[in-house]
């Protein structure tokens, strides 16, 4: 089908974008890479949007190490994240994620900020940022604010972004010595949304495990993390299966997703330790 947009405006900078959103009478919609939004518009899942195109705001694109953090601009594209040397050094989890996200032509346009703001429960980047304990940077009419990843993802396609705000960047802790990351998922075909997926981050302070595509938002698997920190692998698998509440749909049943999550954790731990199953 064909999209039915209410209007289009191209923002020169973040201040201009915020002005445009304020003028849109609640119909404002931020357009970044458009790889989910334009698909939704074409299917008329979203109509009458007043599109605020932020995709040319150069300040929002790029990766840097600043103030002891890895800062990734919201408009940094998936393909760029996959090849950026700073991301490879400090957030290899994101590089692993890129290989699972859609297809090459979509990775050329899609942005990390768009992925986080869209908050698809099956998407990889939200679960990665949650596993890494990242911070989401927002800018609105009242100024800037920061939201911890733990508080950012609210529900299906719902985040802590308030009306009139724009996601500008993500910051992540720098990689510490000995830190390891594994992202693992199962999908029916390459580039499909995962039936279930996991991010595992191992730091000196302990493990962080997140699961995606097993509920309305990425899950920080606290019980499984606690078992892993205690060295109880089998207990962690049981705990993970107990603390997620996956949906049944045409792709997979809840029971299958729950089973799969446990299998994926076992495989991820093998990848982490280098031991074979």
């Amino acid at each position, binding site marked *: 089908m064909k999209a039915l947009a209410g209007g289009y405006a*191209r923002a020169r900078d973040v201040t201009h974008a915020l002005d445009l959103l304020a003028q849109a009478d609640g119909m404002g919609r931020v357009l970044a890479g458009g790889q989910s939004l*334009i698909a939704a518009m074409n299917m008329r899942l979203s109509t009458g949007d007043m599109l605020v195109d932020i995709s040319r705001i150069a300040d929002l694109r790029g990766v840097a190490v600043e103030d002891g953090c890895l800062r990734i601009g919201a408009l940094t594209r998936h393909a760029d994240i996959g090849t950026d040397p700073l991301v490879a050094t400090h957030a290899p989890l994101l590089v692993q994620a890129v290989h699972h996200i859609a297809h090459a*032509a979509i990775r050329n346009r899609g942005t990390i900020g768009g992925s986080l703001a869209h908050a698809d429960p099956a998407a990889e980047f939200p679960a990665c940022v949650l596993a890494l304990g990242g911070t989401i940077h927002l800018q609105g009419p009242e100024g800037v604010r920061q939201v911890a990843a733990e508080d950012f993802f609210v529900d299906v396609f719902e985040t802590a972004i308030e009306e009139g705000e724009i996601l500008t960047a993500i910051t992540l802790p720098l990689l510490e010595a000995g830190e390891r990351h594994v992202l693992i998922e199962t999908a029916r075909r*390459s580039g499909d949304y995962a039936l279930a997926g996991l991010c595992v981050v191992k730091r000196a302070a302990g493990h962080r495990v997140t699961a995606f595509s097993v509920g309305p938002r990425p899950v920080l698997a606290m019980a499984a993390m606690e078992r892993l920190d205690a060295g109880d692998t089998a207990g962690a698998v049981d705990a993970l299966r107990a603390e997620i509440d996956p949906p049944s749909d045409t792709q997979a049943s809840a029971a299958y997703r729950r089973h799969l999550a446990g299998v994926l954790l076992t495989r991820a731990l093998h990848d982490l330790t280098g031991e074979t199953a």
Partner: protein
Amino acid sequence: MTEAFRDRIDIALTVNGEAVEGRVPAGRHLIDFLRLDLGLTGSHASCEHGVCGACTIHVDGQAVRGCLMLAAQADGAEVWTLEGLTETGVIRDLQDAFVERNALQCGYCTPGMLASIKELLDMGGVPDRATIREHLSGNYCRCTGYEAIIDAVESVAKARAGEAAA
């Protein structure tokens, strides 16, 4: 509607090396602009939600989904469709290999396939079959002629690598 938002947007871009201007509705995606407004029907529209890959074109040197980019966003861009890629001869060897290997049946997916493959071949080297398959995972062929397509890509990659080494 406020002054700032437009429901028709004036754009100026380069398509297949030629300067083009147009006035497009806000919701018009790039592939419809190319096909319906400019009459460049070589690149195809199909699923229109980014799944099938038939509309793959090149924008500013990268393969993108023509249905997942608004024409309004292409202002100032350099766009190449199958017509331009054909006329400039940059994928002639690939097109010949498609014919030789019978790598198309109905042909509907072919323009998108060729645009995606061009990006892979431009990276240089000889990708293995798994890499070719992965790169084309977003291009659906409903005649399911995938093996012949991969054969064609592999043969062109080898031939180009051979020429580069010679």
